């Protein structure tokens, strides 16, 4: 088993006395698609933001983040990004006043290190033909689905070692969700490592290799997807979503 591309150890995030997140140990393997699911407020967003060293308000964070063996915890967020730890946020994930083309150009010119696979703007248009058609539209003019695609495309141009997605399916029609997740799956099959935080358990189950269940800031289950499909807690979460 090769070393994981992302390893989190002892990550704790406190917001003014409340422990929002407490992760003993967590990893994403190379070329693996790991899904993180859980109810609202379980700490999913806190997890991905915490890995990047970012918080919405004043927060205390502790813990070690290893990217390809290198400890990033002393680095500020933008430095971690430059090392290849890329997060696609759930909102405001594109530059609204720039065109699709400008968004992508800026990402490919961005000073992220050149020692790994970076997608070119042409390659990305090949993956997302509808973005190619909307090349000259402003980010603010795009639909929710197109914006999500652009967010992913930008990250690919920046050159990820591991890609973190924060609830990409929010606000998207089911057909689009499926399409987007399958695109991500095919990228993973080509070698990309992805951490997918998702509210939509059913959709996540279709594409992930491994599933992690987060409850009140802690990991309560972590295993291969086939094994987790039968786990009663996952079924609860899945049914819970269905029941809405």
């Amino acid at each position, binding site marked *: 088993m090769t070393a994981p591309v992302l390893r989190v150890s002892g990550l704790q995030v406190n917001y003014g006395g409340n422990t929002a997140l407490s992760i003993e140990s967590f990893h994403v393997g190379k070329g693996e698609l790991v899904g993180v699911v859980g109810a609202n407020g379980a700490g999913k967003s806190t997890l991905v933001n915490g890995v990047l060293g970012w918080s919405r308000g004043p927060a205390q964070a502790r813990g070690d983040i290893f990217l390809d063996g290198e400890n990033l915890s002393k680095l*500020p967020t933008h430095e971690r990004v430059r090392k290849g730890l890329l997060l696609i946020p759930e909102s405001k994930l594109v530059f609204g006043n720039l065109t699709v083309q400008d968004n992508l150009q800026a*990402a490919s010119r961005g000073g992220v290190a050149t020692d790994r696979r970076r997608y070119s703007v042409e390659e990305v248009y090949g993956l997302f033909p509808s973005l190619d058609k909307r090349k000259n539209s402003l980010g603010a003019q795009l639909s929710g689905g197109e914006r999500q695609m652009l967010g992913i495309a930008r990250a690919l141009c920046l050159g990820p070692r591991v890609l973190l997605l924060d609830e990409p399916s929010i606000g998207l029609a089911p057909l689009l969700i499926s399409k987007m997740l399958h695109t991500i799956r095919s990228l993973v099959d080509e070698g990309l490592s992805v951490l997918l935080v998702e509210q939509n358990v059913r959709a996540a189950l279709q594409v992930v290799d491994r599933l992690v269940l987060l409850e009140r800031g802690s990991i309560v289950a972590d295993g291969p997807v086939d094994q987790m499909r039968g786990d009663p807690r996952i079924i609860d979460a899945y049914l819970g979503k269905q029941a809405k």
Partner: protein
Amino acid sequence: MLFRGLLAALVVVAGFFLPRLLGGGGELYSAFVLIAIFAVMAYGLDLIVSDLGEVSLCHTVFFAVGAYTTALMSTGLGSGPIMTFLGASLASLCVAALIGLITLKLREFVFSLVTYALAVVAGTLAQHWSFLGGSDGLRGIPMLALSLGNFTLAAEGDEGIWLVAYVLLLLSLWIIHSFRRSTLGQAAIMVHLNPRLAIMSGIDPARTRLQVFLLSAPVTASAGWLYAYQRAYISADVLDPYFLILMLTAVVLVGKRMLLGPIIGVALILIQERFFSMGAYVDKIILGSVLIAVLVLQPNGLQGLFARYGRQSR
């Protein structure tokens, strides 16, 4: 491509001869020179306001630093125009570095407050410090003259200075244009539009802000450099709020991030002052009111008005 290049060259050359085409004369050349100087001054601020999206209220300090350095070096050390230009740029960079480091961690409006207070402090220093001439200022700045061996190129009067002013203006336009197409320029826009996403794209917002600030200072200072030669004397009134309001209005009047915006803005304001003046105090009221009106009624500037008409007439 070649055609566009030739056309651009033609426009550039025609621009130089514009005052002569309009009739020439001291009055006209003086207006053109001042428009060029104040436009260059405004372009420095334009980088901060339009690209970074922050309000720096201390660019008058850079203007003053440029002017005072030129005055001190030319009268005290007998330096020529190239040396004073370098001196002015270097001095403004040092001041900008100091200000930048102090304000690095401050939130946006505290940054504006600090820069505003700095301008007031600079005004106090200019008024009272004998090294800077106190309230009398520094006089006797020599004519701008370049000597190469036996050959001397001197800028006599406003007509003579116009060449230098025009070249300086073109240089500033080139700097702004190149900046906006550069990685730093794009980073500045991204930090402005969506700081979080900029960070998530690997950009360091503090470093970007500092770099843009450092770039903007010598641009404005170079305007001060030329202003010193044009007036032949410099005093504390280069820190008058007039220059600040002038710069701000010029930057917002025509539209954001339009290359020719500031120069058109400055031209409109100075034309009103010189040829349609209603007295110094009423002019103040007019200038202030224009600034207010643009921001309240048409925040995208005058070009937004034309865009609307364009859409309606289709």
